[in-house]
């Protein structure tokens, strides 16, 4: 059996990659994918802990999270498409009409 630490380590790495992706990448879709990576790293952690505690709770949470992520995709992609229609670009550096 693969030790728990490996799973937790992997989920922490995925979470970090997700954060870095949001902070570094400039394409709205890739930023959004990085956010999804963060959610999925949390899912992995939930499942790992559920196995550690031999309880189903953690696995059920994952379903909730997946449903929420799907709802976010629907809204997020719609917004990105709307912006692309207007600007012909989804580079967040070019989305800068608001400033003080």
């Amino acid at each position, binding site marked *: 059996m693969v030790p728990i630490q490996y799973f937790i380590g992997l989920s922490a790495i995925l*979470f970090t990659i997700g954060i870095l992706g949001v902070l570094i990448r400039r394409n709205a879709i890739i930023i959004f994918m990085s956010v999804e990576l963060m959610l999925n790293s949390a899912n992995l952690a939930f499942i790992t802990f559920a196995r550690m505690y031999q309880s189903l709770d953690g696995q059920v*949470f994952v379903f*909730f999270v997946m449903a929420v992520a799907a709802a976010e995709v629907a*809204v997020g992609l719609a917004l990105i498409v709307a912006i692309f*229609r207007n600007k012909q670009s989804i580079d967040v550096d070019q*989305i800068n009409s608001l400033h003080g």
Partner: protein
Amino acid sequence: MSLNDLLVNLNLIMPITILTAWACVLLLVDLFIPKERKGITALLAALGLLVALALVISRAGVATSAFNGMIMIDGFATFMSVIFLFSGLAGIAVAYDYLIRSGIERGEYYVLLLFSIVGMMLMAAAADLIMVFLALELLSIPLYVLAGIAVPRPDSEEAALKYFLLGAFASGFFLYGTALVYGATGSTALTEIVSATTSGGVNLSFLVIGAGLILVGLGFKVAVVPFHMWTPDVYQGAPSSVTAFMAVGAKAAGFAALLRIFVLAFPPLAMDLTPVLWALAAFTMIIGNVIAIAQRNIKRMLAYSSIAHAGYIMMALVPYGQGNVAADTVASALFYLLAYMLTSFAAWAVVIALEHNMGEGRDTDGLSLEDYSGLGQKQPALAAAMTVAMLSFIGIPPTLGFVGKFYLLRTVIEGGFPGLALIGLLTSLVSAYYYLRVVVYMYMRDGEPVVRREPWLYFTALATAVGVVVLSIFSEPLFNWASQAVLKLI
């Protein structure tokens, strides 16, 4: 859970059940309402909120838990629900005419508003981190859509995208924090987290990091420094009626969750978390108020002001771990949220009344400070409402903002953080500069402000402004009501 259990539980959370069902029904009903008569949808939505409000108030004093302890119905949830439902009503009142004149009137607006309020009410009642997460998403996702409802206007789209990306980013933090807390304690229920922590044997480093990530996630929602970058852009770009609702509702909901999670589940971690909260509160008050000085756009100024106010409320959270002060922490934060709600709607209603589309004989959009010149002569009532709001934001008597700030500072000093209280006091003095500047423009400069005569906007501005003054006289019973909302483990 049998069907009967389900019905019993749904009955326990009746206001939320009714509001959810009503929002779903309204989504269908709206299809049959002709395009030029969407006022009917607004009216029906307001009706649903009123019914829910009546139910919440008639059930005040009940303390129970539902859905296997996932939801707690107690004084705290009741108090917050009243705040959310009132902001929903005010949100509809300020939106109605504004949406028509901006040409973005859609029935979905009101339905999304209802869903968002359901999320907020669940957030205040949630007693389980997963429940908090679901409620957080339920309140946020409609707000992302609302921020972008003026599509294809570029600034509205931009605000929606920024709000969405950073909101989802924050949810990621919150969720990972929840996973770590679950890993450390074996449960996401707030009561079991605290009992597992006190009985020992938990992985403390996981727990502390998890609590920190939860704080980051909710910190984004309530806009505390350094998680505030999205706030000015989103508040400026979103349609003003959405901003008004978002500035109050989302912030209050975020604080409801912060208060409940920290006061119920994390007192054993106070040693580690208090310094972090201290720094967040201090930086938020300082940076929010200082940057607000430089703003000439009223929406951006109010955005930074809302950041600063998040700092003031955060201040009450700092001594949350001290058993004897924790009750005051909750009571003063709730009271301040109430004061902030009324004050904020008074200010935003005036802002919305002055906003107009560019090119209607004017080369401004009514959102810069100069557009407020001469308001005192042209529209004394609106100018008076704005003045009351500004005084209340600063914390000058006789306004609710003064009483609220007094209770906040008292809590902080009781908790043994006089330094933080001093920062709060000094930043309030600094804030007087940019709030009073608006008053100066209104009364001491000549100008021809363009103002709409829209009954609901007037009503909201005046009613909330009067509320801010009158309630400050009766603040004692109000504070006692907030004190009864103290969080207890059921």
